């Protein structure tokens, strides 16, 4: 499990179910659900696709996770990653899509 679906925010648009490379997401009573949480690869395709910030990426406890939630806000020119740490602090990193990686 690398993602969490925050059902209250989900509007049932189904975009995440189209992009999951494992066919793991589907709609049930107009809310996205994951078939088996252990099967998520952690690619964040659904996190980037969700227009409602209703899916976040997390680091599992066995991977050293500390309780943070990572969201992504996609736009034409940028991809902004929003990290909400366990203590409530928020950090943002914006990646310019036209800029190549320096490394």
């Amino acid at each position, binding site marked *: 499990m690398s993602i969490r679906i925050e059902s209250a925010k989900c509007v049932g648009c189904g975009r995440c179910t189209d992009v999951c*490379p*494992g066919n793991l997401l589907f709609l049930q009573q107009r809310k996205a659900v994951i078939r088996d949480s252990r099967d998520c*690869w*952690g690619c964040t395709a659904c996190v980037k696709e969700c227009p409602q910030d209703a899916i976040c990426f997390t680091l599992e406890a066995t991977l*050293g*996770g500390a309780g943070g939630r990572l969201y992504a806000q996609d736009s034409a020119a940028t991809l902004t990653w929003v990290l909400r740490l366990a203590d409530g602090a928020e950090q943002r990193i914006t990646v310019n899509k036209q800029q190549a990686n320096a490394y």
Partner: protein
Amino acid sequence: MKTIEKSADILIVGGGAAGCFAAITLAKAHPDLSVLLLEKAGLKRSGCLAAGVNALNAYITPGHVSQDYVNYAARDAAGIVREDLLLQMSEGLNAVTQDMEKLGLVILKDKAGNYVSRGWRNLKINGENIKPLLAKAVRQGKNVEVLEHVNVVDLLQDAAGHAAGAWGIALREEAAVYARAKAVICATGGAAGLYRPNHPGEARHTMWYPPFNTGAGYALGLRAGAEMTSFEMRFIALRCKDTIAPTGTLAQGVGAAQVNARGEKYQAKYGNTTSERLYAVVSENLAGRGPCYLETQGISEEAETSLEKAYLNMAPAQTMKWRETGLGPRTANVEVEGTEPYVVGGHTASGYWVDKERQTTVPGLFAAGDVAGGCPQKYVTGAFVEGKIAAEGAAKYVRQAAHIADAAQAVPVQTPAALAASVAELLTPPGAPPLFTVDALEEAMQQVMDEYAGGIATAYRYTERQLALADKHIARITRLAAQLRAQDTYGLLKIFELRERLLVCRVLIAHLLARKETRWHSFAENLDHPHQDAAFAKYVNSRLHDGRVEIILRDLVNRSNQVKEAAQ
């Protein structure tokens, strides 16, 4: 369950790097041929490139020639490569890179407009959106029909054994798909999930290779009688601990060296091929000098910021880990570990035995990308090139093959009704509930491979006696898997995936047994034969024949002076 029937001139199985490029090539160069692409998930984010990619690792930079790339790959594989395939691939790398740039991929350039390289064969890019760009280009092809969320199970063949299409299941329609074609390009990717992963349990799928690449392409080829090569050249990735994020960005990008817990740089002791870099970490750990790290401490603030963004573009977990712990790469060295082994032809050389047009030993069946063998280090751009070559090969075949002109001959032996009946049987509730689930059998398979076929538990080492036990247990689990039944198409998918993996495991074990030497540390570490043996400067190939795995040792193609036996 209903059956959706389709037909096309060329069927492409799998819409990853190779499959997309095959479709793009056929749209551009052969608009008169009809093309059907079947993709297991959604084209926009499927396969290896779902999360993005950080660099293009196969490119011929100024001052280098294609042969340099061949020499590099041949050296890395200790000679067990098809130099003919490698050279042809290398010669196509730069053209597909330019094609990809035209499709919208951002590639770093200097002020003069030249690509900026990272090392002698890598380009720096923003590859987060590489898969959406490919998907968009495929959809523009007027002669290309794409069916998504279709899992292909097996090849269709005519009475003479020519490829005549493929069948599978449509996950969203609760239907079977029966697709006839005059030629088939297999581009499914390799096989993950054969071995117990680094983190069983909640994070069991936090792995290097997509856990959804289950060896479908290998399995369908094996069942159709195709010859495979070099399964025993397993690939094991050296990754950032826990997140399983790439290490190349740190090693090549910022020049971070490997250091052990004592701060010693140990790499020179072990050599610098891909397998030796992994073996170095394994050996240092076994000697009690672990954990091992990439020495990033002390890099500039600017470098740290750039690395955070680079990882977000391919493996966000690593950036998240740095931020969550408050220990970025500038503050703390990055711990590394080896993954579980995979069978994959894009990094090592496992896959279909193909000719220069990427036609397999099954007439009319072509292979490209990770599922095609003999041509390692192809990475993303190499997979593009192979997609292009396979597309041209398939187009030529469709136009020239004599049996195709006679429509009565090119009829699949398998009828839609027979396939529907076989699927219906799997959906029939069993008389008594089966003892085991797909999950339980998958776990059993992974445990067997881990303990007896050189997984993480044995530091990737094995003996012949262990392999014999592995073979026995895989046969037992295969028998148990025959009893599995499903309730819906997703349940069918899980059964088919397990069967594919079990077959790949069986063939892999036979390959490991056949190579009675240790040519690549860790990738195939045979404790009964711990040294390289000149007698095994050969390809280990295999095919299924009358239900048995038949091993075929073949002489090296274009053997040249680059292959220096017993070099160690």
